[in-house]
């Protein structure tokens, strides 16, 4: 009799506790977050703080680099972003942003100590794309301290309007140019030329734009030393 009640108890507990196992429940997927791109040429690096907290890998983030390798996720409203120059700890940016779940963002800082500029983009799959993994898309920014208007050439492809004659971005024009524009998949030589047709910078080697790639291409550098012109490439997370 005693044995029987033990067995009953065992079976009952397995059956009842079994319902606590949640292996088959769908797990929330953590997507979204921000990538930080430093194209501020007047300092070796920039220090990033969100709500006065440092971000690992971004303290400092060197010029012409981006990070962290996995976008940082700061859900919520009214987050304070500060960016300080490694030169004299000058504050370049003091702004707030809001982050929604499932959206990727990029923070891009550029300009000069006298006129630091910054904007935050939403990095989205272009409208009307059925299979985001089947296309390649590009956006282009002029982030160089130059008065020249520059045009991006991707191999021999006919340059789209958004990549043509771009003056130095303002925060507004940067934000407006956040859409990725589909281009033919391929492996290209990438050059940036000015309105006279003179080459400003060539990306060394070739740039691979495979299916499923979303790429920011930008010109950085400073007219005061033309050797500093450089074509930057950032492969972006999109959603």
């Amino acid at each position: 009799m005693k044995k029987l009640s033990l067995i009953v108890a065992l079976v009952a507990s397995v059956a009842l506790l079994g319902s606590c196992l949640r292996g088959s429940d769908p797990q929330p997927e953590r997507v979204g977050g921000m990538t930080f791109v430093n194209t501020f040429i007047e300092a070796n690096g920039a220090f990033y703080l969100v709500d006065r907290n440092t971000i690992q890998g971004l303290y400092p983030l060197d010029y012409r680099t981006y990070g962290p390798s996995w976008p940082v996720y700061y859900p919520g409203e009214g987050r304070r972003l500060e960016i300080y120059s490694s030169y004299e700890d000058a504050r370049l940016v003091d702004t707030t942003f809001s982050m929604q779940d499932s959206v990727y963002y990029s923070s891009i800082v550029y300009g000069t100590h006298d006129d630091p500029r910054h904007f935050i983009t939403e990095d989205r799959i272009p409208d009307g794309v059925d299979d985001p993994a089947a296309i390649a898309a590009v956006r282009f920014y002029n982030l160089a301290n130059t008065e020249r208007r520059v045009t991006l050439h991707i191999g021999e492809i006919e340059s789209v309007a958004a990549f043509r004659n771009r003056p130095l971005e303002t925060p507004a024009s940067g934000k407006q140019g956040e859409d990725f524009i589909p281009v033919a998949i391929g492996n290209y030589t990438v050059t940036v030329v000015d309105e006279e047709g003179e080459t400003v910078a060539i990306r060394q080697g070739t740039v691979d734009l495979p299916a499923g790639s979303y790429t920011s291409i930008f010109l950085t550098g400073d007219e005061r030393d033309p050797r500093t012109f450089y074509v930057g490439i950032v492969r972006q997370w999109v959603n």
Partner: protein
Amino acid sequence: MQTNINLYKSIALSLGVMLLGGCIKDEETEPEVRSGFTVVNSFSEAQAVQHRFDAGRGFQPLNQGQGYRGIDFYVVPSCENCKLEIVSSNELAQLVDTAFALQVNKYYTSFLFGTEEVPRHFITEDQVPEGVDDPAAIAALRFFNLAKTTDRVTLHIADAEPIAAFRDRPTETPKTGKDAQEFIPTTHTGTHVLTIRNENGEQLARRTGVALDPGDYLTLFLTGDGGEPAPYYIGVVRHRGIN
């Protein structure tokens, strides 16, 4: 009988635990015997200076040497009769030898400037401006001319009208420095471009991106002599604490 012995044993044990427990002093507060001491080196004629501090136990070095334009913060023992000696890296010339009091939990700043012939030095008490209820809600500034110049200089914060105390300041003497130790509250927070001009309106120095948020207490100072290797420069001390 056996039960009784066990009972006595446990009584003895609990008694011991209770009585010895009273000896544990983890919860007691430590006496606070520290002061905050910021040292600023605006002495351009030496590569470095060394601060030696005596809190009643003889002179001990605060640092291995502080470079020109250096700003360092130390927590030092409070003392009624503190002594400070500053020696130059040039032949270990003694620039400063002074005595003062540092009160418990108060903050002070030492400013060194001048020349080898006439080294100058003063110590400020870093206090919340009078009549301020919430020190974290305001920002406040003070300005010293520690440069080697005959110009009278004015500090401009962005395009705002200069604060009266920041206008036409000749190079400080220890007395004018000490007299100007009050922080002046400002509602003009944000990120600012600072410029310093002489009485002819000529710009001597400029600094961009100076962050001024509520709760920030800054000392701004002009240093240098306008030549090489010490061009005019605007130094910023971000005070760790104020009284």
